[in-house]
């Protein structure tokens, strides 16, 4: 009914940027990210009756994340799609993080490239925390993992990103 779609427009669509941002970072290209976002939104509309109020953004992000992972599994290299295994990849590495000379904040492309080198499980916690400003609890709900897992992934994601940023060739050069 028209009411339902109007209600959906008001409640859910304000969070479309967040949804697209997550999909775009997970998928890696515009066209597929748009397809995945649209499909997730339609799915959200179908489930909308089941939405009991509360945090609409987290609810939408949960659905988008699931759609994005489904896409990754069927479209990407196998290793990318395997959900991160803490055991396999070890626990928190407490060795000193690399001394970083961070890329200038203005160099957006370089930062994007560095984030893109992270495994998808790391990208998603990093994007949710740093770009969407989600709390650990929200990230845990969206990704369907315990808060402890969110913490260890975030730690590793930041370490890897720091490393990637420090080894990237500086555009502009320092002479």
């Amino acid at each position, binding site marked *: 009914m028209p009411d339902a779609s109007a209600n959906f427009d008001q409640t859910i669509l304000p969070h479309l940027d967040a949804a697209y941002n997550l999909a775009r970072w997970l998928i890696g290209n515009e066209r597929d990210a748009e397809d995945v976002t649209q499909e997730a939104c339609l799915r959200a509309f179908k489930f909308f009756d089941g939405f009991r109020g509360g945090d609409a953004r987290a609810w939408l992000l949960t659905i988008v994340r699931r759609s994005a992972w489904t896409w990754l599994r069927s479209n990407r290299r196998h290793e990318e799609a395997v959900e991160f295994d803490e055991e396999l990849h070890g626990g928190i590495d407490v060795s000193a993080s690399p001394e970083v000379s961070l890329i200038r904040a203005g160099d957006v492309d370089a930062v994007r490239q560095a984030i893109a080198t992270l495994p998808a499980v790391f990208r998603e916690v990093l994007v949710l925390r740093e*770009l969407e400003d989600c709390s650990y609890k929200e990230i845990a709900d969206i990704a369907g993992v315990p808060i402890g897992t969110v913490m260890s992934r975030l730690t590793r994601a930041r370490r890897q990103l720091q490393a990637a940023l420090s080894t990237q060739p500086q555009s502009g050069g320092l002479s």
Partner: protein
Amino acid sequence: MNCEQIQKLIHAHHDGELDVANTLQVDEHLADCPSCFNTARQLSALRGTLQNAELRFRAPASLRQSISAAVEQAARAERPAPVTRPWYRQPGWAVAAVLLVACLLTLQMSFRRGDDRLLAELTASHVRSLMATHLYDVASTDQHTVKPWFDGRIDFAPPVKDLRETGFPLLGGRLDFVDGRPAAALVYGRQKHFLNLFVWPSASTSPAELRATQRNGYNVLRWSDGKMNFGLVSDLNEGEMREFVREWSVK
């Protein structure tokens, strides 16, 4: 705490996710330990880099439009004949459970006579109003507040009477749905009991005698004054309910 323990907490500290006690401990350690302080500084630098708004992708306008259109289309395809029942949209399990019961009742009822179905409907509406704690859309003991409230919400003007003097204070009113059409439900109290008086226009112009029936432990009294149909439902005893009807009719 040693450096190893601090390193485990330092991200949560950085994200403001630690409780007060741990925050203080980390703060204290950072003041004394150059190495851990350096880690904290790097985390801040990293955040500074990531704060750039351009890193966040924005949904193209075309995507927004295309989703809106697709959702509207899906909405049309799904439910071609909407029925307006405002209180049904109330969230919550109580309503869902009651709906289920009502559906089952309705399903069962479709095999019975229409009269019987009406009886069931009135009782179900009464129970639903109590269960979903949705007794009134307008809560007022003033008939001059309740009556105008129905203006524009319903296609007829239901009579609203205050029977406080005879021990049936008016409590409020709400929209309901009876016999396939919108109806006014007036809520009265009698000590700790609630009475729902359903009012909807009569199809025939001749008055109908008062009929009393019982259903699932509730008393249902029905009558018509030739203009409106009335259905009074309550767990109150039949004698007192007949008293209500007498007072209503003479007032």
